[in-house]
């Protein structure tokens, strides 16, 4: 081992979100010594950053959001032990034939079918406690959402959520858990899947940002900075990339993989989520109790690449999203409790790109075309109809979209010229580097991705174990 290498491991995993956590859990269960490197901090549940300003700044990359080149879309990506799942809403979907058909078309990978993926979902399901929210707890915002769908003739159903014991009857509000759930009720990775891995002997270094990967004969070196300024390197026999689309792509581009992976950074997709607000005469109290309880589940909407969600935002987030400023804006905020909200999530069908500028900063082009914007307007009009039919006297749409779901950049496929990861989860041409996280998705999905990231990562783990044997 060369003197600048701190230690050598059979497997290093970069990133501690659902993919990194699931792979760490599977490999350590089989007795493999693994090291996980995570750029973000570990926050114990009693030390989650609390005022909104602090959690946007601290648990997300870029100080909260990273804007794309149009500044219409703000990417939100978690930076903490647990990745995006510290902030997520725990909504779980098994993808169906509709998604897998499009993935097969894009990737040429034949196991993307409901049937072939089912065993992997079945293995992921017991890792988290999943259940819909009991109807008794739905608030007025949920009622408006449901009623609006009914009036427009669309189906909406309770979402399956990874959470338990939230104790809404004792006055708890899920909106408080957007910066981390202090009750451990939300199925975030640190106290579920990752905890298993830790108990099984996983080594974990938080606050370690890997900035270079170097492949040498028989070993892979990960170089980076620990706690911002200590430069260090670790080596491994096998490397798992689980740093999500922007993290993996940036790392591979910086490390010079573009020559061997011509598709690197090319097939990037998002769900652009727009908030539609309705101001009512009566109190709605959308921030109380559970939120994001229902979602549209209607094939006609899915074919259009539209999903409605019954979400809301805490005050600073809402103030930022709501258009305008000044006294009118104050007047709106003074009516915070009278606001209902429907979010439309627009699935991008056209690939965008991720590249680096001269200073190695990310340049994100979401690739949205007139088609995506047309569907955005269509969804906005539907949301307005739903809100107005329930009695909203004013409606407005957020001044930008947030994008908490992003996919690709290191996409899977059989063709090494058009994709980066082969069906057995290796980077094309690199047998010892694996990837099964959201960056490997061949396209957008229109549905919430975490359940599938877990399933795919468990499948990848079996592949890694097979090759190690």
């Amino acid at each position, binding site marked *: 081992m060369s003197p600048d290498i*701190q*230690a050598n491991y059979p497997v290093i995993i970069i990133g501690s979100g659902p993919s990194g956590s699931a792979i760490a859990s599977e490999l350590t269960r089989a007795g493999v010594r693994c090291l996980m490197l995570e750029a973000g901090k*570990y926050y*114990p*549940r009693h030390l989650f950053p609390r*005022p*909104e*300003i*602090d959690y*946007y*700044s601290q648990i997300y990359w870029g*100080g*909260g959001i990273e*804007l794309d*080149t*149009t*500044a*219409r879309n*703000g990417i939100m990506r978690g930076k903490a032990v647990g990745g995006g799942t510290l902030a997520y809403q725990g909504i779980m979907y098994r993808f169906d034939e509709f998604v897998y058909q499009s993935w097969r078309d894009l990737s040429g990978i034949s196991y993307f079918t409901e049937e072939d993926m089912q065993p992997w979902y079945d293995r992921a399901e017991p890792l988290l406690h999943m259940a819909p929210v009991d109807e008794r707890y739905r608030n007025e915002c949920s009622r408006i959402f449901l009623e609006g769908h009914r009036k427009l003739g669309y189906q909406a159903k309770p979402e399956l959520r990874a959470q338990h014991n939230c*104790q809404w009857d*004792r*006055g*708890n*509000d899920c*909106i*408080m*858990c957007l910066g981390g759930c*202090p*009750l*451990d009720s939300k199925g975030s990775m*640190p*106290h579920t899947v990752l*905890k298993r891995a*830790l108990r099984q002997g996983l*080594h*974990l*270094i*938080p606050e370690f940002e890997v900035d270079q990967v170097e492949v040498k004969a028989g070993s892979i070196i990960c170089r980076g900075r620990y*706690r911002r300024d*200590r430069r*260090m390197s670790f080596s491994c026999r096998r490397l798992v990339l689980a740093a999500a689309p922007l993290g993996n792509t940036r790392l591979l581009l910086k490390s010079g993989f573009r020559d061997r992976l011509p598709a690197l950074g090319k097939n990037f997709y998002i769900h652009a989520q727009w908030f539609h607000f309705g101001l009512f005469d009566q109190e709605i109290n959308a*921030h*109380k109790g559970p939120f994001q309880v229902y979602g549209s589940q209607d094939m006609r909407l899915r074919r259009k690449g539209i999903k409605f969600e019954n979400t809301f935002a805490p*005050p*600073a987030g*809402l*103030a*930022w999203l709501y*258009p*305008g*400023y*000044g006294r009118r*804006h*104050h007047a709106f*905020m*003074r009516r*915070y*409790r009278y606001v209902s909200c429907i979010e439309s999530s627009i699935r991008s069908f056209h690939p965008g790109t991720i590249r680096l500028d001269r200073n190695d900063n990310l340049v994100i082009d979401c690739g949205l075309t007139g088609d995506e914007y047309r569907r955005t307007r269509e969804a906005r009009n539907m949301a307005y109809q739903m809100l107005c039919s329930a009695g909203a006297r004013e409606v407005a749409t957020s*001044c*930008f979209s947030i994008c908490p779901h992003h996919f690709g950049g290191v996409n899977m496929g059989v063709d090494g010229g058009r994709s980066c990861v082969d069906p057995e989860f290796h980077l094309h041409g690199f047998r010892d580097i694996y990837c099964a996280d959201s960056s490997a998705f061949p396209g957008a999905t229109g549905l919430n991705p975490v359940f599938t990231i877990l399933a795919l990562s468990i499948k990848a783990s079996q592949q890694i174990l097979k090759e190690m044997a």
Partner: protein
Amino acid sequence: MTSKYFTPAQLQVFNRIGDIIAPGDGVLPRFSETGLIHQIDRMAAYIPAQDAAGLRLLADTLRFMPDLAIRLLLKITTLNRYFPGPVGANLRKLNLGLKGIVFNLYYSFPDDPSGFSLRIREGISWDGAIRTRPAEPDDLPALVEAANPLNRDGSAR
């Protein structure tokens, strides 16, 4: 309190911008009156260096401009949809950046001894809460600590 990232003169400019974005309405206070600008490092410490540099440059440029000019500039940023390509994108970025600073400080209710945060909180009747505590003790911090092969200074354990 002073800022590690902005000079007092730059903070003054943000206060002037803040007073246009959050002018107060009798119940809600004017932004500059709250003194919340002095908590700007809570976010400045985490924004990318080039964004912070852009904000400093903006503040230095606006420093000697009258309020009316700043008001006009803000108005133009809201008209971004009429400007195609990078011009529109930069206007949007500016709009979101400035609104982000002001509203994040104003509506996050950070601890503030002068009581303005509380006044804003009450002004919008915000009462989101987690009222219970977890029953189980938290064994995760010890697990995470034990899993780290490095000491805090980076030396091997």
